[in-house]
């Protein structure tokens, strides 16, 4: 595949917009990490008594590190099995109702982690309204099975499986049909084709999905907070969170030190991923999708899928709904005491609900849009004009996403508490600081699909346009942008849906009037108002489901594969 060195880059003025772009990316993405590093380093320099060494010497640090790695790895394996498995089923077989399965499967990713944890907890404890209804609730005082390392890994795996799914599916959609047909001609059975052809060809998609799932699990806060802390099982993000509770003046330095450790691990993971992905993926025109015939096994497979979806999605949501309808926590749900008072209260009395909704929508839409605008040229530049510098920058992009949200929030506070020079606008305490944190954090989420799409863009397509007489601008308008648009839109969607129920970053950056939906749920749960929290969670899920449906309808006008749950 040709990767043309565009001769027009000789033009000096073009260099400027590249530099400008890189500068913006740097400011948004790298600056918080640097500020944090500076904070930690100033501490190391302070010598042996400094909190950095203290942190390194504490066994709690290493224990939490081990816990982080362990649960993240387990979660990644589960996410791979679920996500890649479903991607193969959906993309490669003739299973019916594909849009439905994809929709149901993507839903867990869109649900805030603390809501996920909440719903599973409602499902499994002795107080489970659903289990009580069914008469199979465990006895009073039985330990909550989810308060454990595997509980954390299980929920994180389910939460992040859609990330793997998206990554592998993208790969599978552009699998050249001819290759598989060639294998068939040589007599390969469907099974062998899977093994010899398809697995190796989407290795990149699988590895990329695994990497992003691992990094997500590493930085996940909501689930380990709700499931791990009660069992005194700490991972690095929750350890950091706990350290923040110690509000002596050394706190910021210690937190910076711990987050440097997380950052290093995340960087290692990201570096490994980049090494593996440095091989060029396959070029293919998105053609007709493959469809292995499952024959008699089809019904069985569909039922198995249905069972899995029921287990990982339907049951917890039912539990959540049940918990939102009880008059008070712990009361068993019966036909005579169904109460919608929680919903009434959240929607009518608490101005906070609507405020949080507006804030979340505003922040997510803005972040998603701005990022889409930034990553398109960035992907173009880094692929068409690859330089060592860019490869390094690309690695750095992942850092704000890998860092626990708590840490990024602190970095942003340190950066922005004073008004910006010259402009004299203070971002602190406004939505602006949260927006900035979102831009920093989700840049890589927006970038990855566009980058992957760019890598697969045959350079000849642009060259052909050049020969037709198209200038750089025209080429961008007519060729590059339309072909990248689906990926950019996918990135937009992903950022939007993740940001709309984001918690950990906004948990520290929100201030009066600037709550987000995630913060709303978390605060309610924190204050023991579980019924209210459940009610708002159900509303959030409904809103997200509606959004996903609406996008599916809009997706008629978009090329195939953009909206994953549309076929």
């Amino acid at each position: 595949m040709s990767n043309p060195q565009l001769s027009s880059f000789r033009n000096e003025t073009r260099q400027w917009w590249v530099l400008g772009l890189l500068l913006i990316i740097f400011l948004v993405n790298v600056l918080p990490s640097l500020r944090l590093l500076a904070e930690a380093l100033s501490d190391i320099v302070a010598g042996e008594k400094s909190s950095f060494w203290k942190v390194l010497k504490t066994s709690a640090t290493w224990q939490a590190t081990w816990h982080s790695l362990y649960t993240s790895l387990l979660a990644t394996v589960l996410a791979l099995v679920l996500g890649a498995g479903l991607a193969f089923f959906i993309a490669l077989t003739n299973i019916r109702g594909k849009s439905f399965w994809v929709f149901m499967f993507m839903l867990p990713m869109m649900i805030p982690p603390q809501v996920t944890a909440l719903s599973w907890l409602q499902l499994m404890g002795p107080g489970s309204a659903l289990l009580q209804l069914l008469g199979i609730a465990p006895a009073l005082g039985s330990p909550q099975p989810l308060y454990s390392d595997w509980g954390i890994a299980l929920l994180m795996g389910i939460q992040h499986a859609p990330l793997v799914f998206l990554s592998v599916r993208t790969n599978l959609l552009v699998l050249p049909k001819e290759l598989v047909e060639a294998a068939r001609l040589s007599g390969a059975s469907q099974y062998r084709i899977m093994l010899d052809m398809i697995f190796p060809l989407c290795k990149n998609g699988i590895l990329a999905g695994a990497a992003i799932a691992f990094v997500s699990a590493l930085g996940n806060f909501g689930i380990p907070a709700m499931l791990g802390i009660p069992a005194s099982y700490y991972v690095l993000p929750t350890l950091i969170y706990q350290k923040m509770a110690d509000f002596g003046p050394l706190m910021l330095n210690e937190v910076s030190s711990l987050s440097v450790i997380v950052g290093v691990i995340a960087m290692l993971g990201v570096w490994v991923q980049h090494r593996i992905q440095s091989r060029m993926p396959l070029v293919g025109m998105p053609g007709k999708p493959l469809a292995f015939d499952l024959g008699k096994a089809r019904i069985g497979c569909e039922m198995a899928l249905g069972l899995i979806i029921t287990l990982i999605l339907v049951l917890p949501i039912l539990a959540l709904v049940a918990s939102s309808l009880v008059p008070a926590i712990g009361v068993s749900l019966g036909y005579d005491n169904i109460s919608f008072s929680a919903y009434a209260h959240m929607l009518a009395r608490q101005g906070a609900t609507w405020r949080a909704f507006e804030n979340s929508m505003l922040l997510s839409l803005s972040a998603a849009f701005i990022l889409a605008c930034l990553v398109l040229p960035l992907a173009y530049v880094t692929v068409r004009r690859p330089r060592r510098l860019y490869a390094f920058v690309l690695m750095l992009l992942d850092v704000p996403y890998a860092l626990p949200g708590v840490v990024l929030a602190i970095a942003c506070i340190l950066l922005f508490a004073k008004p910006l020079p010259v402009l004299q606008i203070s971002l602190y305490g406004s939505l602006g600081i949260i927006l900035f944190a979102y831009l920093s954090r989700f840049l890589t989420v927006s970038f990855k699909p566009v980058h992957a799409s760019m890598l697969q863009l045959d350079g000849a397509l642009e060259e052909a346009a050049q020969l037709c007489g198209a200038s750089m601008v025209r080429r961008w308008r007519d060729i590059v942008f339309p072909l990248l648009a689906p990926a950019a839109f996918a990135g937009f969607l992903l950022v939007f849906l993740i940001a709309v129920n984001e918690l950990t970053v906004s948990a520290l950056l929100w201030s009066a009037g600037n709550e987000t939906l995630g913060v709303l749920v978390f605060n309610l749960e924190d204050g023991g108002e579980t019924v209210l929290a459940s009610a708002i969670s159900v509303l959030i899920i409904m809103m997200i489901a509606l959004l996903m449906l609406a996008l599916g309808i809009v997706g008629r006008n978009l090329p195939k594969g953009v909206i994953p749950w549309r076929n």
Partner: protein
Amino acid sequence: MNFRVLSVSAMLAGVVFSASLQAETLVLYTSQPAQDAQMTVDAFEKANPGTTVEWVRDGTTKLMTKLRAEMAAGVVKPDVLLIADSVTLEQLKKEGILAAYPSAESAEYDPALFDKDGYYYGTKLITTGIAHHANAKEKPAAWKDLLKPEYKNQVAMPSPLYSGAALIHLSTLTANPDFAWEFYENLKENGASALKGNGSVLTAVASGTSPYGVLADYMAIREKAKGAPIEFVFPTEGVSLVTEPVAIMKDSKQPALARKFVDFVLSEPGQQLVLEQGYLPARNGMKTPAGFPERSQIKLLPFDAAKALESSGKDKEGFSKLFN
């Protein structure tokens, strides 16, 4: 496409400019539950038309983190604090962060409940006692009951690393020769688990995951009134107490409004509101909410605020070592 660009640009502009809106508002940092905070703010705004209160609600310790980060960066946002415990405020007073205000309302309060220099005033009496599930096998009556074998692995507690009230509780018990650190070590051996704030303990007890718990009084009593299967017990040895004091920040940009707020929460209407919310009002001569015993009947464990302040760091560390 154009419309979208325009509307988003407009939104972005709005975001940036909302940042600089300081206006005539009072900013309150509180650790009260959200519903209660909303009620308090609504009542204050009603009593003082033309004012707006923006409130930030979070656990005491998280709130302090916010505050510290802001101070480290040289920016302080809140005007008034209404947080769980006085030890925290004592610390802030020592660091010179609070402003003194001799409120006239203090005449109606027991001197033990407010700072003699007027830096902070207790607004409620929140005790920490034992809560248990209505269907729990045992009915605990004393703190030491929690150490019995019947309670193994069945007890939940709030963590002083999150909750100010829990920190006071820890300091109270560990300074008490009847309990000391041994009590907590025994709790640990008996499988007690440390959760987050009081809210998490409420959830654990009412849902039956941990049938027994250490919990703030109003939480259990309030939920019981709504029909939740939870009971509250004032242990025989006595309870620890936090007063959810209110204080004014020295660098507040609205000192007059802040003082009005302090006066309001300490006034009779303000304390009446506290009563309605289901707390024990701190003011003399107020009724007690349904489900509570008379004030005189509540036995308090002895508590030395100064000592608690000194040992708070060590207490947190000690707890952390035990339970993490």
